């Protein structure tokens, strides 16, 4: 067989229990079927039996995979994806930008699979073919920012380091007399990429993230907890092999065309996602405010603190790109605040999810004593403080290595319970968590990442916390304030205004309650076929693995790029949908089977699955969409009409939403999926 191109045909498999490193060599037909990233990871979750309910997510049996795809490397917009069984015991597929994806490809790997548990804290160093398990006790307990810079230094390629041979005699006499040879050798290059966890992951906080480059996160579904459960602090990779390409000239030509197109995309190039909050989400009532009690401020001046222009002039310092991207959506910031806790924090932006989940959702924007219904009475300095609070909360989540979407939902839940006197400060170890109180937030987050006192309960996330307090207090209504679906936090995109599509999107995406499945807009129009197509494209993109922000610039070029990278001349446009369909079929089966949901018809009756009560039964209290609920509160329409229609159109059974035997066969994945699907049908 001719050597593969685009990919290397090699995945490293590291067993941390034994210290063994082996090589998995997926055959070409597996790459053709699953491509890489999300779909390939799902294939291995089935092949290796991780789907089985007996595999404890936080036990040594669970396998965590970090995967890339065929265009990653010198291609534009590369992302890495982590696929594993989530700490929440469902599917974890979580992507991140940063240089790691390219560097892993340059090292000669399409991914790394990790099983077992190291006896003591370790990190994995990958230098091309050489993979070492190294002691990490010196960085264990350190925040992601500090630890990353230490680990990056420790991994250099052989051509970047050498003992000293330069002697003063090699230098002109006068120079040597002034500055004699220091005998330090070579070693100043810093080209390794690092994925790592913070204290949150080490303590197995369920929503811990895997971080890179300070602010980039494999943020969702608790991949960091799985790292922590394996005593794995991080993965450091330095690759010097480059990227193999079937038709290099064509690949580079297409990549340049994408980059030229991106250069004209001044939405991203001006503010990244920071342009969304004030200008769009507030205007369209789509903004999480105080645990979603509101979704718009009566006075838009309140949210001006989170507008692109305000954030830019108040705190943006520069802009950063992932490799091969000309959109640079990440803006490092320096916080300016009168409060020494927050002043001079270095962080990023906040991006849209952070603006929502640890901004508006925590009541940071209103003036003291004001509600979202009141006019804004502050000045630019008050806005700067509101921004600083959001940035500081973003920073602590990033640096402790926890997800601010789930984390923001959890903090907002606690604040609303406090607002309604359903809990007291005594329930939170004396911390009085009031809306807008960043010091209380700081204190409670510290407890969570240390799993100290009540922090040990909170570390299991929003839904479990609501359940804990509902039982402890004997007040089942506490569950109504858990803004979750599938036991997992709703991201910063509302469902009640004119965005009902989000509700369907959250319900059916195989990554539970995902906001990036692409189906929101088609579902808004009620177009189920288009929603399925959009989900498939997004799952394909997560298998390629490319950035959804840049995907528009790939339109019409994607197939040619895959061809140029891999040399698969018969690769067709239709394969995009097929890869996505495979991921969706496997993801659906994974979520049902590993959670032991035997009768999916009852999925929505089961308390764990019920979406937030607020979606369907609490009308929006204010704003242009006042009075609206998701699908006008018609849950029956969603669960008994739209869902069966969606399942049927996917080629799944209409009664339970299980992929049919014919569908699995048609997709060519019956070999790994049919046995489990048959049990579920």
């Amino acid at each position, binding site marked *: 067989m001719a050597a593969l191109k685009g990919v290397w045909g090699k995945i490293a498999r590291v067993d941390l229990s034994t210290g063994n490193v082996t090589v998995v060599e997926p055959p070409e037909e597996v790459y053709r079927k699953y491509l890489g990233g999300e779909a390939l990871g799902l294939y291995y979750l089935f092949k290796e039996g991780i789907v089985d309910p007996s595999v404890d997510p936080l036990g040594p049996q669970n396998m965590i995979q970090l995967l890339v795809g065929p265009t990653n490397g010198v291609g534009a917009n590369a992302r890495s994806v982590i696929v594993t069984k989530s700490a929440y015991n469902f599917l974890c597929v979580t992507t991140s930008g940063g*240089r790691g994806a390219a560097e892993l490809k340059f090292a000669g790997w399409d991914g790394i699979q990790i099983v077992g548990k190291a006896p003591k804290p370790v990190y994995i160093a990958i230098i091309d073919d050489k993979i070492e398990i190294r002691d990490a006790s010196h960085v264990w307990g350190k925040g992601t920012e500090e630890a990353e810079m230490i680990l990056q230094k420790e991994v250099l390629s052989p051509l970047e380091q050498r003992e000293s041979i*330069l002697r003063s005699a090699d230098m002109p006499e006068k120079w040597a007399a002034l*500055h004699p040879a220091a005998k330090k050798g070579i070693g100043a290059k810093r080209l390794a990429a690092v994925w790592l966890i913070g204290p949150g992951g080490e303590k197995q906080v369920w929503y811990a993230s895997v971080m890179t480059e300070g602010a980039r996160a494999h943020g969702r579904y608790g991949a960091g907890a799985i790292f922590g459960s394996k005593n794995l602090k991080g993965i450091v990779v330095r690759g010097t092999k480059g990227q193999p390409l079937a038709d290099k000239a064509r690949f580079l030509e297409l990549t340049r065309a994408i980059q030229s197109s991106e250069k004209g995309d001044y939405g991203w190039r001006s503010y990244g996602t920071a342009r969304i909050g004030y200008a769009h989400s507030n205007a369209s009532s789509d903004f999480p405010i105080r645990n979603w009690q509101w979704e718009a401020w009566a006075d838009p001046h309140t949210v001006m603190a989170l507008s692109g222009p305000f954030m830019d002039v108040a705190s943006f*310092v520069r802009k950063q790109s992932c490799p091969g991207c000309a959109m640079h959506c990440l803006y*490092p910031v320096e916080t300016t605040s009168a409060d020494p806790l927050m002043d001079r924090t270095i962080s990023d932006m906040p991006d849209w999810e952070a603006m929502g989940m640890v901004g508006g959702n925590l009541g940071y924007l209103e003036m003291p004593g004001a509600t979202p219904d009141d006019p804004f009475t502050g000045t630019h300095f008050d806005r700067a403080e509101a921004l600083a609070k959001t940035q500081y909360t973003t920073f602590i989540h990033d640096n402790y290595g926890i997800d601010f979407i789930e984390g923001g939902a959890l903090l907002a839940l606690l604040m609303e319970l406090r607002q309604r006197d359903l809990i007291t400060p005594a329930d939170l170890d004396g911390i009085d968590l009031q809306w807008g109180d960043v010091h209380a937030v700081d204190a409670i987050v510290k407890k969570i990442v240390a799993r100290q006192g009540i922090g040990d309960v909170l570390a299991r996330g929003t839904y479990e916390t609501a359940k804990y307090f509902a039982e402890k207090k004997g007040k089942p209504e506490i569950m109504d304030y858990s803004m979750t679906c599938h036991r997992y936090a709703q991201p910063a995109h509302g469902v009640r205004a004119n965005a009902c599509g989000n509700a369907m999107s959250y319900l059916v995406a195989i990554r539970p309650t995902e906001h990036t499945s692409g189906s929101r807009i088609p579902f808004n129009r009620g177009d189920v076929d288009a929603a399925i197509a959009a989900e498939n494209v997004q799952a394909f993109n997560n298998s390629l693995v490319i950035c959804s922000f840049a995907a528009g610039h790939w339109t019409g070029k994607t197939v040619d790029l895959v061809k140029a990278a891999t040399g698969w001349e018969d690769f067709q446009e239709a394969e995009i949908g097929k890869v996505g369909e495979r991921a969706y079929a496997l993801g659906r089966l994974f979520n049902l089977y590993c959670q032991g949901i035997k009768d999916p018809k009852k999925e929505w009756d089961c308390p764990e699955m019920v979406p937030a009560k607020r979606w369907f039964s609490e009308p929006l209290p204010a704003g242009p969409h006042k009075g609206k609920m998701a699908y006008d509160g018609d849950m029956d329409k969603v669960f008994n009409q739209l869902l069966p229609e969606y399942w049927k159109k996917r080629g799944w059974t209409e009664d339970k939403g299980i992929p049919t035997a014919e569908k699995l066969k048609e997709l060519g994945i019956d070999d790994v999926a049919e046995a489990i699907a048959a049990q579920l049908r």
Partner: protein
Amino acid sequence: MDQARAEKLWELHHELERGRLSRRQFIRMATALGVSLTAAEALAGCQKATPAPTTAPTQAQAVATTAPQPTSAQPAPTAAPTQAPPAAAEPKEGYMLRFDGYRCTGCLLCAVTCAEKWQAELFPEQTKDVVNLEFSRIRPMRFQYVDVVNVCNYCKLEEWAEGTKEAPCMSVCPQKAIKFVPKGEGKPGYTGYGYKTVDRDLCLGLDACGRCLEACEQQFGSGISFDPIEHKAQVCTMCGGDPACVKVCPEPEALQFVPVVVNGRSFAFQPEAYAELLYMKMFNVRRDL
């Protein structure tokens, strides 16, 4: 035909017009770029006092007829260039690469372009189906929120104090393999302003030597790297005066080719130390990297 090959063709044509290439050499090199013999002959013929406006369509035509057939039903997204060729770069004496830490986003396009240029030149066979950044002489390095573009700064030692005005890397090279090609000399395609280069026949490579980088890292920056095939020293030539990295950079003024008086050591700094300074400058904090 892709942009790079089209540009290369124009460079060749430019050389032909200046009389630096013979007609025969031009035709041979143009056909190696994928231009048909007829088209190459036509292009070579055009040099005879044909005004530029007429040459442009002829070249575009030649390009169109010789481009590889698209493999899909879709039209090629990047059409063959039909615009007039870029103005020939004038010699830029005393110019150097400077990067702006605020404007640079660390996207690596400079490194990809540099790597592709050098690997194709040095190891065309071994690298025909790979792009490897290790061949790049310019390497942006990321220190979380700051990026440092690492490239040779063209340092010179101070003769009155240090005994020579050579570059430090040249001065410690036991083989005298690192050379400065004076203005007006050097290889075709370079605009004639002097540049530094490594004589690969003389260089002992990192396995036996590496004094150039050691001297650089100890007192200046980290401006030298070693190619992954023969492990020989690589240093930025600034493309002889018309750097490809500057042309490809998507950020206005992030990477510039600008006059920098004479001695680049004013700018040389180790990447990590520079990153620490950038933190102080940009974020008003000290970070010990």
